[in-house]
């Protein structure tokens, strides 16, 4: 009976592990299991801190929200961290908010080991989140096409317009 029960269902840990975590795997897992902080993804770039606060405070008192920013432009780039005062409230958010809508988008929540300075910035080459570099769909609320595809489109249209003008 002494063996610790791992959380099941909606509040269990996902497969994702932050590669930049300082510490080994088991330390990381321990942090995640005790954490009161959630990573929130698939936000619109236009969703404000207030909107996030409104939804997440329905699960319990929110301590702070750290908006994810584009490293270069310092503008919201579609993710954030939500920290609660209590673990139980963070669990409620995992149970009842993950997979529901905010600002007409289905958002995703996951456990986070706790906010550290620097983590508010996107880790993609161009400053935003990595997923927004490779996306091939058009997502108006996240800056249109993925960055690589957008560059390609821009280059080819530059080319065609320069051809047309010459």
């Amino acid at each position: 009976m002494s063996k610790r029960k791992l959380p099941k269902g909606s509040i269990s840990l996902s497969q994702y592990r932050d590669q930049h975590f300082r510490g080994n795997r088991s330390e990381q897992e321990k942090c995640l299991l005790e954490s009161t902080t959630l990573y929130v993804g698939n936000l619109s770039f236009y969703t404000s801190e207030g909107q996030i606060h409104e939804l997440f405070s329905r699960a319990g008192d929110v301590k702070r929200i750290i908006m994810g920013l584009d490293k270069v432009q310092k503008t919201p780039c579609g993710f954030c961290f939500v920290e609660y005062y209590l673990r139980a409230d963070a669990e409620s958010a995992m149970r009842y908010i993950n997979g529901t809508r905010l600002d007409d988008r289905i958002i995703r929540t996951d456990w986070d080991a706790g906010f550290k300075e620097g983590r508010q910035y996107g880790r993609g080459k161009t400053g935003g989140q990595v997923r927004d570099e490779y996306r091939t769909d058009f997502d108006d609320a996240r800056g249109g096409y993925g960055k690589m595809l957008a560059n390609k489109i821009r280059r080819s249209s530059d080319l065609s317009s320069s051809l047309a003008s010459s």
Partner: protein
Amino acid sequence: MDRRRRHTDSFSEDEDDDRGRKRRRIATDDVDIEDRLESLITRVGEKSTSSLESNLEGLASVLETDIPNYKHQIMKILCQCVVKLPEKLTVYTTLVGLLNAKNYNCGGEFVEMLMRNLKEALKAGEFENARMMVRFLADLVNCHVLVATSLLQMFDSFVEVTLEDNIPQVRSDIYIYLVLSALPWVGRELFEKKEMELNNMLITIDNYLSKRQKIHLPALRVWTTDGPHLQEEYLDCLWAQIKNLRSNKWMEKQIVRPYLAFDSVLCDALQHTLPQIIPPSHNKSVLYPLPRVVFRLFDYTDVPQGSVLPGSHAIERYLIEEQLDRIIHTNHVERKDCAMALLGYPAKNKIPLNYMIVEVMFGQLFSLPRAPYLDLFYGSTFIELCKLQPTTMPEVLAQASEMLFDRIDSMHSICVERFVQWFAYHLSNFQYKWSWDDWEECVNMDANAPKSKFVREVLLQCLRFSYHQRVVESVPESFAPLLPAEPKAHYRYEQEGAGSLTGTMHAHKLISSIRSKCTPEEAAISMKELPNVYPNGQENENPSFNPLKIDVFFSTLLHLGSKSISHSFAALAKFHPNLKSLAEFDDGKVCLLKVLYEVWKTNQQMMVVLVDKLLRTEVVDCSSVANWLFSFEMQHDFTSFYVWEIMHSTIKKMSRHVDQLQQEVDNAHDKQEAAKRKEQDGLDVLDDDVPTDEAIERMEERLESATSAQKNLFLVIFQRFIIVLTEHLARCESAGVDYNTPWYKWVIERLQQVFLMHHELVFRYINTLEQLLFTSDVDIHILEVFQQFCALRS
């Protein structure tokens, strides 16, 4: 058996995978026979490719061979199933019946163990578990495990509780409920075998129920009127349903009874007699369940043709509702499983299941004093239900919303508030699409009229979830008068005409100092010369605070941080010492809160969030928040929902603080005692771990002052309530007009809400409240609220 079962998993695909893998491992390793037994027993009765009867038969044979070695474990697992899986009650009574037929001793030992558990549950005040055990025992009569007479004896001893002197009614109520809620299962058998004894018992119950006091009823009703549906107390309703069942010769159509198929096997079995059980006597520490009022939204005319909604006094209504309640209870931590399980309710072809689910879910969401689970659970589960049944569920939910809106005039304010919260949340998940035109009537209504208030507050909530433009675009143009103002900070020192204000120069100077990163000390020095006047120039004779200083400093700070919540928090954190000293005393704290209102009155979320921050950083305290909310300046917003959101979150924070200190004191005592025991046993004690007497004393002092602050907070709130309500009643009387205005309804029900939402706490101070505030010279309308509340536990 194991292999077959593996295919019967119902739920979502990914979960299916997970469970399958886990069980395969257990089966192959064969490490833990107990786990295997548990999984076998707990899974019987789930959806399966073979019939329930053959599964039961198979399981009974497996267990029969395991009994010699694992008897105790098997009994324990079965006893857990009684309380944990009551939705499969008859499956397990049948199983016990089959085991008893094979092995008489084994049946006897099970009954003994269950009786022991029942006694413990009653003693510990776990009445819901006790109720499931009593019902199980009752059904064992049907399975020829128990003698009918001995069950009746147990029932009689429960009914006798009603004859005890000096006990609260909630005690006798719960014992009657234990009996009544078992009767649908065993009524027929008792009627056939012991009709006279059964009838005598029912007469006693009838006598008891006709004499009960129901002062508490108004406090628990979702609707103040009885139209279109009667608002019944739970025991009265169940009694009416049981009387109907009796007139139908105790035949019902809802309970699945697998034991009927085994009648030939079971009827040969030997039966046991129950050992005598005496209800543990009453003592003050036992908390009995509070009474309830049965929630009714639909009747058969609301439901499309093809299925029939059982009438409100049909026993089937009770049985289905209870099962749905149980499904929610079992699955409330996984909203997707919950939605799936509700829609998978076995009797779905005969009944309008969607309607019953919606009614039960709203019944829980609106239940008073509090909903059993987080409001958000109901909202997110409704969304799942809509996803699973996209063609039917949204329609039923829309119909329900229409009906709730239609009946909103008589709906309790607490429930209106929950309705607003849910409705806005639901809209935010469905692109804010709603047939608003149907509700156009409320555009021209009094702002305090419930329908108009509802729409206004919903739009305010939508504003918090989205943004102003979005809300404007979601409603018809004619709704313009109901729309919230665009939220923005109002900073008087940069508005037109600011030049003539006394504080403008200082405010502008402060802006540039803060922008050039001045220290808190430097900021304080720059405020020094401001005279002790109000921003309008009027002199302030109270030397304990300087309203102009507070206004200039705090409004400038809020203005500079107005970009977002985080910016505001950062500003508050940096200049925390300044705020502390500006609002050192009570009047200063209230003044500071008034400035907050002046700046952020069009952004309610900001007010809620910032008051929370000011409380947590101890710039203001709980009673100053209460005094502010009741102040003249806030009268205009007094019936606005955000005011009460702030009030209740303030009370909650106070009580969390007290609980925390209490826990610290308890822990310290425990540690000290443990150390003393160790010392007595001659063991070494590490000094640094053990709190000293002085340390404990300090903790106790802190706890004491927090408790008295809490008591004081309630006194402030209730006293202010009495004042505003008494003024209103007197004003109406002298003017000769009806006191019962929309404003009055909102306010008196907000008073009720403070009692109900924090009922455990308020009960602690009930004597003080009675002696100091709710005395006989208080107007009866106000006093009634207090009396209804007291009656909840009497």
